[in-house]
C-alpha cells in the first residue's frame, strides 16, 4: 500500500459502514418505540418514572451502582434468570421496558444481584416496610443481608443525637449491633429517599402481548 488517500478512504469507510450498519439501522428499527396502550385498562405502558424516582436514577448514576448490578433479565432459555430461586423477573426484559428511562444502564457485572425488578420483590411487605429494608441495606448492608460484599453508604444518611429534638418518624430501626449508639438516630437524606424511590419503581410487571409473541422462542417441531 502506497497511496495515502486510498488508505484514508478505507479507514473512513470502515467506521462509517459500521456506524451505519449497526447504530443507524438499530436506530431506524427501535429508535421510536412508543408506549403501548393496554386495550383493557386504557393505560399506557411502560408508565413514566415519578419525579422522585427520576431523581433517584441520578443518584444511582452518580454512585456508580452499575459497576456491580445489571438491569436486564435474560429470556427463558438463555441463562437461568427466571428460574425459581433466582427469579430476577416474571419475564425476560423487552426493549420497550426501557423507553421510560432517560439513561439506560443495563450493566455488565453481577457482583451484586440484578435490579431490573427489585421493586417487585416485596413479598407480603408493605411499600413502607420495603423502603425501610432498602434503607437498612444502604446504611448497613450486613444488617439485612449477612455475608454480602455490598459497601455501606453511610453518607446517604444523617446520624444525629435525638436529645433536644423530636425523634424523626423516618429513623431507621436498626439492630443494636449496627445502630450508632444510644441517644442517636439514623435518618435517610433526600438522596437516600430518592434512590429508594427509584429502586422501588424498578418493576416490569406488565407483559406486552405484542412483545410476548415476538420474544417467545418458536415451539420445537416434533421429529418426523
Amino acid at each position, binding site marked *: *500500500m502506497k497511496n495515502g488517500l486510498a488508505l*484514508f478512504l478505507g479507514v473512513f469507510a470502515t467506521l462509517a459502514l459500521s456506524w451505519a450498519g449497526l447504530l443507524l439501522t438499530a436506530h431506524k428499527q427501535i429508535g421510536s418505540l412508543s408506549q403501548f396502550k393496554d386495550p383493557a385498562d386504557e393505560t399506557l405502558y411502560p408508565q413514566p418514572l415519578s419525579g422522585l424516582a427520576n431523581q433517584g436514577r441520578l443518584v444511582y448514576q452518580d454512585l*456508580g451502582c452499575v459497576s456491580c448490578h445489571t438491569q436486564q433479565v435474560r429470556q427463558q432459555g438463555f441463562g*437461568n434468570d427466571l428460574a425459581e430461586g433466582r427469579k430476577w423477573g416474571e419475564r425476560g426484559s423487552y426493549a420497550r421496558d426501557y423507553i421510560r428511562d432517560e439513561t*439506560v444502564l*443495563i450493566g455488565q457485572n453481577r457482583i*451484586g444481584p440484578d435490579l431490573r425488578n427489585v421493586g417487585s420483590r416485596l413479598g407480603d411487605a408493605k411499600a413502607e416496610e420495603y423502603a425501610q429494608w432498602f434503607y437498612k441495606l444502604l446504611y448497613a448492608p450486613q444488617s439485612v443481608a449477612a455475608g454480602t460484599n455490598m459497601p455501606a453508604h453511610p453518607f446517604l444518611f444523617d446520624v444525629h443525637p435525638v436529645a433536644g429534638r423530636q425523634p424523626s418518624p423516618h429513623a431507621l430501626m436498626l439492630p443494636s449491633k449496627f445502630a450508632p449508639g444510644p441517644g442517636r438516630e439514623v435518618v435517610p437524606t433526600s438522596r437516600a429517599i430518592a434512590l429508594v424511590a427509584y429502586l422501588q419503581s424498578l418493576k416490569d410487571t406488565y407483559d406486552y402481548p405484542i412483545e410476548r409473541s415476538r420474544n417467545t422462542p418458536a415451539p420445537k417441531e416434533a421429529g418426523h
Partner: protein
Amino acid sequence: MNPSANNRTEQMEIDASAKWPVLVFFAYGLGWLLLGGIMQLAAAMQLHSPGFLAGCEWTTHGRLAPAAQNALVYGWGMNAAFAFGLWLMARLSATTLRHGGWLFIAAKFWNTGVALGVGGILAGYSTSFELLEMPRFVSLLLLAAYALVGVWAITTFSIRNTENVYASQWYVFGAAFWFPWLYAIAQVMLFKAPVRGVLQPVVNAWYVHGLYNLWFVPMALAAAYYFLPKLLGKPVSNYYLASLAFWWLVVTSAFAGGSRLIGAPVPVWIPTMGIAANILVVVGVIIIAINLFGTLSGRFEAARSSLTLRFILISIVSFILAAVMNLALSMRGFAATVQFTLLDGLRDWLTFYACFSTAMFGAAYFILPRLTGKEWRSGALIKLHFGATALGVLLMVVGLTYAGWTQGNMLNNAAMPFTDITKAMSFWFAFRTVVLGLLLLGHVAFLLNFVWIACPINSQSTASATLRTPPALSLEGHA
C-alpha cells in the same frame, strides 16, 4: 559516509526531534499508570473487604472502580499510545517530528481533561456509561487536545520521505482517525442528542469495542510489526498478506461490538451480527499470527535476549488470546454461563493490559534509551518489571478464567443463594487483588527506572556508546 551510517544519523535526528514530546507523554502516562493502579487495587480490595474506604462518598466502590478504569485507559493508555505513535510515525516516515511545542500544549490539555474527568467521577458527576463516565464537559477538552496530537501524527505521515507505507503506519494512521470519530459519535448519541431506550447500551457497546479494538489493538500491532523485524534483522515473513490482514481485522472488528449484548433486550440481529463478526475476526488474527510467528520462527533465542521482544511476545500471545476470548464469549451457550462474571471482564483486560500495555512497555524499553542517550539504570528493576508482568498476566488469565467459570455456574444455579456466591467468590476477589498488586509492583519498578533515565539532571550519558545498534534492515523494502 556509508548508507547505514547515514541512516543512523537520520534516525538520531528524528529521535532528537521526538525526544521531549515522547518523554512528556510517557511521563504523564506513567503517572496515571501508578495512580490508576492504586485506585484499581483499592477498588479490587473493596470486593472482599467491603468496609475498606466505604465511609467516604468519593471512594465508594461504584465511583472508585470506574475512576480507576478511566485513569488507566485515558491516562496511561492514551498518553502511552500518543508517545509511541508519534515516535513511530516519525521514524517510519523518515522525517523529524515538527511543532513539538504544540504537542506540549496538547499534553497539558489532555491530561488536565483526564484529571478533571477522573476527579469528576469521584465527585459524583459520573454518567455511568462504560468508559464514557467522565462528566460531559470534559469531552470537548479531550477532543480538542486529541486534535492537536492527531494532526501532527497525520502531518508527519503526509510529509513522509519514503515511498512505501509500512504496515505499522497503516495501524497508527487508522487508529489516529478512528478514536476521535468513535468518541465524538458516542458523545453525540449518548449525551448531546441522546438516543432512546436500549439504543444507549448499543452505542456504548459499539464505542467500548471500538476503543479497544480500533485504537489500542492497532497500536499494539504497530509495535509488533515494527519491532519484530527490526530487532531480529529479518523481514516480516509473508509480508504480502499483511495488508489483507489489516483490512480484514479492522473491518470485522468494527462490526463486532454487538457481541457484547448477547442476551440483552435488544433486537437479536445486533448480537448476531457481532457474533458473525467475531468469527470472521479469527481469519485476520490467523494471518497476523502467520506474519508475526513466521518472522519469529527460528529466532526464538534472539527474541528472548531482547527485553523489548519479550514484552512484544506477551503482547502478541495476548492479542490471540483476546480474540479467542471474544470468540468464546460469542458462543451463546458459553456466554449464558459466564456473562456478567469476572471472565467477562477478563476479555477487556486482556486487550487493554496484556496486549496493549505490554507492547507499550516493550516499546518504551527500546525508545527511551535512544531518545535520552542513557542506559537503563537498574537491571534488577527491569527484571522485576518483566517478571511481575509475565507472572501477572499468566495468573490473571488462568485464575480469572477458572474463577469466572465457577462464578457463572453459581449464578446460573438458581438454588444457590446470592450471598453464598459472594462468600465463595471471596477468595477469587482476593486473588485478583494480589495479582493487581503484583502488576503494580512491576509498574513502580518501571517508573523508578523511567525517572532515572528521563530526568535531565543526572546526565551520566556514557551509555549511548554501548547502545546496541539493531541489525541493519530497511523496512521500506517491504510493501
